[in-house]
């Protein structure tokens, strides 16, 4: 795993003092069918977007809580990264976006019948958010509602 020591000193001090928010989800949801019958959506916080979508705003104080909708038909080689975090080494992800958004791997799982199918859209956030209030009250619930409308059975999330 990445270690706290991997962060720059200023970031380390910030993380040590930062009041992390606990995720509020009780009692939790259960997968109601086997994986082989389940429809999946992916979410990445690497700041991915398509060339024709606006990049994330790296200047917003507290972080840009907006999201981009990524169509399931995209070619991962098209993806761009706009990410504020200087702790996120983008070298590997620029070489292979599957490193932060494993769409090709999930396509292979669907081909092999290990999962049923992929949703027609996935979602991208820029995870470097220090003021997550409106992430929790606004943008993440919007995504959750879309995933419900799409009747997605399970979601796989990747930080960067």
């Amino acid at each position: 795993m990445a270690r706290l020591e991997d962060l720059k000193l200023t970031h380390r001090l910030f993380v040590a003092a930062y009041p992390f928010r606990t995720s509020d989800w009780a009692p939790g949801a259960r997968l109601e069918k086997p994986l082989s019958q389940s429809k999946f959506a992916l979410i990445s916080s690497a700041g991915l977007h398509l060339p024709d979508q606006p990049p994330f705003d790296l200047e917003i104080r507290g972080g840009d809580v907006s999201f981009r909708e990524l169509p399931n038909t995209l070619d991962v080689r098209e993806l761009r990264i706009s990410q504020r975090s200087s702790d996120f080494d983008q070298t590997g992800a620029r070489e292979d976006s599957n490193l932060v958004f494993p769409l090709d791997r999930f396509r292979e799982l669907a081909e092999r019948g290990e999962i049923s199918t992929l949703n027609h859209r996935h979602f991208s956030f820029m995870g470097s958010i220090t003021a997550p209030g409106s992430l929790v009250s606004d943008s993440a619930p919007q995504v959750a509602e879309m995933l419900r409308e799409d009747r997605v059975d399970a979601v796989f999330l990747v930080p960067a």
Partner: protein
Amino acid sequence: MCNQSVGLIAGVIEKAGIPTVSLSLLLMVTKKVRPPRSLSVPFPFGYPLGKPHDAKLQHQIIRAALNLLESPDELPILQDFVTA
């Protein structure tokens, strides 16, 4: 902060009734955020799925994470990924 963001988004989706599983790059943060199901991976920031173009390793990580979705264990589940 990415690990907090992912954990919080996972929580919101889970609360809407859809089960989630997330990867974690920073155990200390994930322990505080407590998302429903999380697989802690032994890789640096920017490398949650291990290595670029290593489909085998990427599949091992995804499989280990998907197993958590099928686990009957009480939530939250926080498991370490062990390389095969």
